[in-house]
């Protein structure tokens, strides 16, 4: 499917990935209705979403068929920026627990 890279996936592979992504979406709904609360539930939900996104990027967007250079140029930098955004949480908790009464 790529202009330059050799495509290794077939329609059968695409259907399997499609099924996996839908199943994982269903799993998210099941997780939401379990009795887990708060941070633990959010971590589980995001873990499932990351797997779904990984499948989509690698198989639907065919990043695995491109040169490794492209993957290395795009993904680590994006993940780094998103991880750096996590520094806001401490201020969020401060606002929750130390707000003026």
């Amino acid at each position, binding site marked *: 499917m790529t*202009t330059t890279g050799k495509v290794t996936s077939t329609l059968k592979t695409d259907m399997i990935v499609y099924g996996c992504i839908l199943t994982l979406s269903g799993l998210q*709904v099941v997780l*939401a209705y379990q009795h887990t609360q708060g941070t633990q539930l959010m971590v589980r939900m995001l873990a499932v979403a990351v797997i779904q996104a990984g499948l*989509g990027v690698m198989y639907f*967007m065919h990043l695995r068929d491109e040169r490794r250079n492209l993957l290395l140029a795009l993904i680590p930098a*994006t993940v780094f920026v998103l991880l750096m*955004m996590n520094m806001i949480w401490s201020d969020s908790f401060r606002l929750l627990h130390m707000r003026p009464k």
Partner: protein
Amino acid sequence: MSEVGLTMGGHVPGITEESPFAIPSKKLVMWLFIISDAVTFGALLFAYGYVKNASPDWPEPFKFSPSIVNVMLMTFVLVSSSLTMLVATRAAKAGNKTSGIRWTFITVAGGIVFALLHIREWLGLIREGVRLFQNPWGSPMFGATFFAITGLHLTHVMGGVIALTVVALGYKRGRYNSDDIEVWSLYWHFVDLVWMFVVPMVYLLNISR
């Protein structure tokens, strides 16, 4: 070309440096756009998490029916439209123009159905009294963050619907080629992937128990 010509910045076919990623510039630009857009959505979702975490009375308004059922249906439609886009790209790359155009328009139809379901969801919440800075349940920021995130995603879906229509019609007339279909399929899959994060963060973590 003499040595002087080369040092003066002259371009000679065959001696320019090979692209490090070995992909056409249009595709590289789309990837760079996708990465920047992913960070934009990431920032919005982090801001949403920040406001939610800092609010002791964050509303949990989403009932299984109609909201979660509607969201599940929207997810099914959007992921299915990604599959039809894959079929369209595959057909276009194989030189089957008619099939490529047909499947691209099926994808467009999926995008329109998704948008209609989304608007139905919005109207349901608006009927219940949710506005940008007020709602009947709790933290007034709920409406602003909810409409900002889902609105930006809906804008992307509508943008994709328009872009795919333009590219499919251009492909039919010979103005665009299968590479353009492929480049815009990347955008469509990205819109699908963003939804995978919007659903748990915005809907499933706020279900009514």
